[in-house]
C-alpha cells in the first residue's frame, strides 16, 4: 500500500514537472521563437489579407500609423526592400493602427506603397502581445516563427541584415 502511494506520488510529481517544463519552453504568444499568430484582415481594397497565405516567405510585419513620425521615416525603406528583395521571398505587410481608412489610402498613394496594407484592430494587436506604441516591426521566418520584434524606430541597417539572413535560408516546403 505504501509502495503504491509512493509510486502515485512520484508519478504526480513527474507530471507536474513535465507540465512546468513544457510550459516554460513554450514562449508566450507573439514572442520571439513562437509561431506568428495568424490573422485575417481586409486590405484597403477590401481583399482578405491572411498572414498564413505567406507561409514560406520572410515576412516583415509592420504595425504603423500615418500620424507616427518614425513610421513615416521607415516606410520608404520598406517600399525599397519590397522592390529589391521581393523576388527572393520577402513580403512586407503593413497593419495600420489608424482609426479610419481615409488617411491610410492617401498615405499609400503618396508613398507609393507596393505591399498589402490593412487596417488593424484590437484583436490582432492583442494576439501580438499588444501594440502599445508605434512603430512595431516583426520579422517572421519562412517557417512562420517570429524571429525578432522591434519596438519603436528600428535600426534599419540591422533590420535589413536580419532580413538578409532569413532570406538566405532555403524556402520551406
Amino acid at each position, binding site marked *: 500500500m505504501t509502495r503504491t502511494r509512493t509510486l502515485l506520488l512520484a508519478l504526480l510529481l513527474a507530471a507536474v514537472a513535465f507540465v512546468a517544463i513544457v510550459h516554460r519552453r513554450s514562449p508566450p504568444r507573439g514572442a520571439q521563437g513562437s509561431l506568428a499568430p495568424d490573422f485575417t484582415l481586409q486590405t484597403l481594397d477590401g481583399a482578405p489579407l491572411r498572414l498564413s497565405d505567406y507561409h514560406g516567405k520572410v515576412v516583415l510585419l509592420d504595425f504603423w*500609423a500615418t*500620424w*507616427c*513620425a*518614425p*513610421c513615416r521615416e521607415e516606410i520608404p525603406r520598406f517600399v525599397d526592400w519590397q522592390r529589391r528583395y521581393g523576388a527572393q521571398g520577402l513580403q512586407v505587410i503593413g497593419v495600420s*493602427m*489608424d*482609426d479610419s481608412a481615409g488617411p491610410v489610402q492617401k498615405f499609400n498613394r503618396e508613398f507609393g506603397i507596393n505591399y498589402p496594407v490593412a487596417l*488593424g*484592430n*484590437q484583436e490582432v*494587436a*492583442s494576439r501580438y502581445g*499588444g*501594440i*502599445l*506604441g*508605434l*512603430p512595431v516591426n516583426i520579422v517572421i521566418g519562412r517557417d512562420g516563427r517570429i524571429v525578432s520584434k522591434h*519596438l*519603436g*524606430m528600428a535600426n534599419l541597417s540591422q533590420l535589413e541584415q536580419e532580413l538578409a539572413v532569413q532570406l538566405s535560408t532555403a524556402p520551406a516546403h
Partner: protein
Amino acid sequence: MIIFRVRQRPSWILCCIALIAWAPVLHAQASASNTQAQPQLIMPEDLVKVLKSAGTKPLILNIGPWLLFVQAHIPGAEFIGQGSDPQALQRLRDRVQKLPHNSYIVLYCGCCPWAHCPNVNPAYAELRRLGFTNVKVLYVADNLGTDWVYKGYPAVSGQ
C-alpha cells in the same frame, strides 16, 4: 575720417528706425511662443504615486489614438481622441467647458516617442489657451507600453 563717419550715420539711423518698426512684430512673436510654452510634465512614477494616494485625483484625459486606448489605458482615464485632430480638440473643449480653470488635469498620449508625438502639444496649448492653469502632461519617453504598462503600472483595457 570725418567724411566716413558722416557717411555711416544715415545707415545707423535707418537701422534704428527699422528696429523700432519691427518691435511690435517681435513682441507678437514672443507672445505667440509663450502660448506654445513647453508642457508642464509629470513623470510616470509620480503619477502612479498620485493615483495610489488618498489625495485629490486629477482628471486624466487620453489624447492618443483609439486603438491604443482600448488595448491599455490608465484607470479612470477618459478618451478624448488625438490632440492633432480638430474634432478631438472640440471634444476636449466640451469636456472641460464647465470645469474651474484651476482643475488638476493630466493629459497623456504615449503613441510614439515623446519628441515625435503629434498630440501632446496641441492639446496642452488648447487647455492653456482656455485658461487652465493646473495642467500636466505625462512624460512618456518611448511609448505607453515601455514606459507604463510593461513597468507594471496600473492599466486597464477596453473602453
